[in-house]
């Protein structure tokens, strides 16, 4: 297997039936290969079908046409090898931080002894610096902390691909920056293939190896793909004056606000 085609999207179409009997073509003709351990952002205006695309990769939604192939296996439904970090964290509110992660690990790795299970859960609690909050319920911690638990839960089940659906979209910008740092630090230690849906240009450039830019819907598709040739670890402050960073930002800005500008509805 070639590592360059770890995850393949082939000729993906998604249409939704409309009440009037017609069809809404949300996504058309999407072709994309994602390398192993690559971090890819998908950016676009709202309604460009980027979340639909992610849901199809997750298996929570099915494409009308085309194939999604992960590790030479066609995707037919959801599964733990494609862990999802949901925008609204989706922690189970009746379980503590620890129990939320434990539930996932227990299900995906039933062969673990109780001691291995505890070690694994605690390892991932520590990874997102939540040791002090591990016995708290989601209702008692901040939005940023909840999302960190969401990330820890997703990583704890050792996924082949980590799918993040606007993971920091609901957070204020300082918390968002903090979480981006967390994510980059974690990524340095556990190499993972990551797909991030975002509408934040800085976030896309900072985090990604490649930025996939989507055209506007209906009939949204991939418009341009941008390589971000910045060494890691990346420092958000130093990057502000980095010519490559500026080039990438401008390319995305140009795409989103000139070529595919969108009026507010």
């Amino acid at each position, binding site marked *: 297997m070639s590592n360059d085609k770890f995850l393949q999207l082939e000729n993906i179409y998604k249409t939704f039936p409309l009440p009037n009997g017609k069809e809404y073509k949300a996504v058309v003709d999407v072709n994309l290969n994602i390398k192993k351990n690559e971090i890819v952002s998908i950016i676009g205006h709202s309604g460009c079908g980027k979340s639909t695309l992610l849901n199809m990769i997750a298996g929570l939604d099915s494409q009308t046409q085309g194939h999604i192939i992960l590790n030479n296996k066609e995707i037919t439904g959801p599964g733990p090898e494609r862990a999802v970090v*949901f925008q609204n964290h*989706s922690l189970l509110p*009746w379980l503590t931080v620890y129990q939320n992660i434990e539930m996932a690990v227990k299900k995906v790795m039933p062969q673990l002894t109780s001691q291995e299970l505890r070690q694994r859960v605690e390892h991932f609690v520590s990874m997102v610096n939540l040791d002090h909050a591990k016995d708290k*319920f989601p*209702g008692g911690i901040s939005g940023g902390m909840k999302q960190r638990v969401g990330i820890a839960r997703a990583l704890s089940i050792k996924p082949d691909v980590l799918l993040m659906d606007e993971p920091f979209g609901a957070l204020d910008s300082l918390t968002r920056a903090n979480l981006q740092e967390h994510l980059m630090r974690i990524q340095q230690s556990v190499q993972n293939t990551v797909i991030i849906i975002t509408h934040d240009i800085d976030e896309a450039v900072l985090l990604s190896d490649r930025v996939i830019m989507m055209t506007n819907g209906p009939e949204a598709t991939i418009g341009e793909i941008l390589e971000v040739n910045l060494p890691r670890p990346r420092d958000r402050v130093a990057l502000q004056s980095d010519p490559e960073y500026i080039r990438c930002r401008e390319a995305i800005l140009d795409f989103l606000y000139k070529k595919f500008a969108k009026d507010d509805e």
Partner: protein
Amino acid sequence: MRETLKKIFLPLIVMVIMIQAWSMTGKYISGFPTPSDTYIYAFGGTTSMGDELKGVLTDPFYVVNKDDKGLFWQLLESLKRVFGGFALAIIVGVPVGLMVGMSKNIQYALNPFIQILKPVSPLAWLPLLLFAFKDINTTALATIFITSIWPIIINTALGVKSVSEDYLNVAKVLRFNPIEKVFQIILPVAVPYIFTGMRLSLGIAWLVIVAAEMLTGGIGIGFWIWNEYNSLNYHNIIIGIFIVGMVGFLLDILMGKIADYFDYRKKM
């Protein structure tokens, strides 16, 4: 502190007004139990008619024979029936409610019958059930079961429907099987709703038992009240009403406490 005082003081004012209104009723309906005589019927003393009484609440535990027992035993018998029918309603109602909530087809199939049977009065069921079972206890139990099961089914189904799509997506990604889905995702969300249903259901059961026992006879608080009517002890009817109300109130508090204990939203 001010609030606490108000909570004690304001009901006291209402009580005084109510007792006053009650006293006045006696002036218009001859022989209507007065508050002071009712107190004596309850706790003993000499009535305005000059009768010396022991009072039904002074010795609720007495047993003369199986047909003549103190109020405590009457209540206990009623409560046994209530909890029997109530337990049966939970055992059947929760699984049915889960199915109705989880499957559109089952919902479509059962909903019309739930809606039609729900408003049927226990008094309408009683003759049929008495004919079918020919036994007082079974009839009372069955009547409570069939009238109190509906809120449990409806609220359980509502609880299942209130499970957010996000939680179900978590279950999908982790590939939960249906049983894991029910126990780890659906039930924790639905439990507070189930308890709301149970609370309503227990309230109904307690309403039903008084009516059921009046018709079935034998023993029980409902029978006791009817028996006092037949014995022309009208004061005791008022005492009976008061006791039924108090016990119903206590049952509701008890269910509320249990419901809070199982409600994850109250733990944060």
